[in-house]
């Protein structure tokens, strides 16, 4: 490993790699995982909560899922403080688009715009890259439901199912095996919970270690972003047989 080439973010190594970006991805590999699955009537996002102390009193209701606009939400993995900055940027970008064009920002355009911001930190300024990966879930009238994954380098891709954070490779290969095109939203929730339960490190799987959110069209045709309540989530865990009682093998 050529350590002498990794102190500046803005230079390539002799092998053509950007070390700072790769180190950022390492940081994410230690963070709580998140999985996103695209179904024909919605997008499902599931996240593993790493901080579960009873003493914790959060100001926001969710740790991993955030609403960007009425029709776009995201799940994060990585350094939370970096994520907060980027989420705020994304929210302002979405509103600025709506102000100019008086219609909701297309999902890919938002992802691209945010990734352009992230890319800037790998090419100029002398600042380190953001240590966050995102899973964006949204709906627009051009392409319907979409799921995008982006990483610290500023690369992004559209996915049918994706995983970020700890054990993401294991989760990704499990998703590859079990994902079928045209699954329903319910089946997607089941698949996401099953995969997350297998890749999570913790011994017990209770509703306070997970977050589940869905983006779907309500009966009136409007896009809705809903975070599952802890009670509903426990019922789902029991229903799909993935719950493991705490302090028991």
């Amino acid at each position, binding site marked *: 490993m050529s350590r002498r080439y990794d102190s500046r973010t803005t230079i390539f190594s002799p092998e053509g790699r950007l070390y700072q970006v790769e180190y950022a991805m390492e940081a994410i590999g230690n963070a709580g995982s998140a999985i996103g699955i695209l179904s024909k009537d919605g997008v499902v996002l599931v996240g593993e909560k790493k901080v579960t102390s009873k003493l914790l009193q959060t100001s*926001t*209701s969710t740790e991993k899922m955030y*609403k*960007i*606009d*009425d029709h776009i939400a995201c799940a994060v993995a990585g350094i939370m403080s970096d994520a907060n900055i980027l989420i*705020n940027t994304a*929210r*302002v970008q979405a*509103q*600025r688009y*709506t*102000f100019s064009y*008086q219609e909701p920002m297309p999902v890919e355009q938002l992802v691209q715009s945010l990734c352009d911001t992230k890319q800037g930190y790998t090419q100029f300024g002398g600042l380190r890259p953001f240590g966050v990966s995102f899973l964006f879930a949204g709906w627009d009238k051009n392409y319907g439901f979409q799921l995008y994954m982006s990483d610290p380098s500023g690369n992004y891709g559209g996915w049918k199912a994706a995983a970020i954070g700890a054990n993401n490779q294991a989760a990704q290969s499990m998703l590859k095996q079990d994902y079928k095109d045209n699954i329903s939203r319910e089946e997607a929730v089941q698949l996401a919970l099953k995969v997350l339960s297998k890749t999570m490190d913790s011994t017990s799987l209770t509703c306070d270690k997970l977050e589940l959110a869905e983006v779907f069209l309500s009966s009136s045709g409007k896009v809705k972003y809903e975070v599952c309540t802890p009670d509903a989530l426990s019922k789902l865990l029991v229903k799909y047989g993935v719950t493991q009682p705490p302090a028991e093998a």
Partner: protein
Amino acid sequence: MVGKNCFAIASDRRLGVQLQTIATDFQRIFKIHDKLFLGLSGLGSDAQTLHQRLVFRHKLYQLREERDMKPETFASLVSAMLYEKRFGPYFVQPVIAGLGEDDKPFICTMDSIGAKELAKDFVVAGTASESLYGACESMFKPDMDHEELFETISQALVSSIDRDCLSGWGGHVYIVTPTEVTERILKGRMD
């Protein structure tokens, strides 16, 4: 106009340039959220732009605070935004009406550079404002329920705008209670 645990906000429907009428269905009252409405009288273009800017600010507020803005806070926001343009103002007079804490009705108006005028009974704005002041003062009673409030505000609006050559083409009334919002169109002198 304030009623018992409810409020009503009404406007005329004419958009005109001096003597020429451009539209007879112009939307002057905008919903910010279920319990907050904003009416903007004055220059049509400034009304629309100011509304769009306020939607921008309110949506970001909703995302960050995870709740809707209280009417009092919104009024302060509008006032600040208008004063920002102190030396090149928006030519609008806003009327803000909403249900605040415990669904208590809140109304206020301001001039085009953001001077707030809070009132407990009614607020008016626009070219027929003097006439409206008179009509509301004589017709208003405190603690009206939403049916009576609708009648009162409609009569006050129609009688004032019918006498004003620059307002008209009917009225648009919103009655807002803690549980529902009713929107009604009134027929006045269609000129």
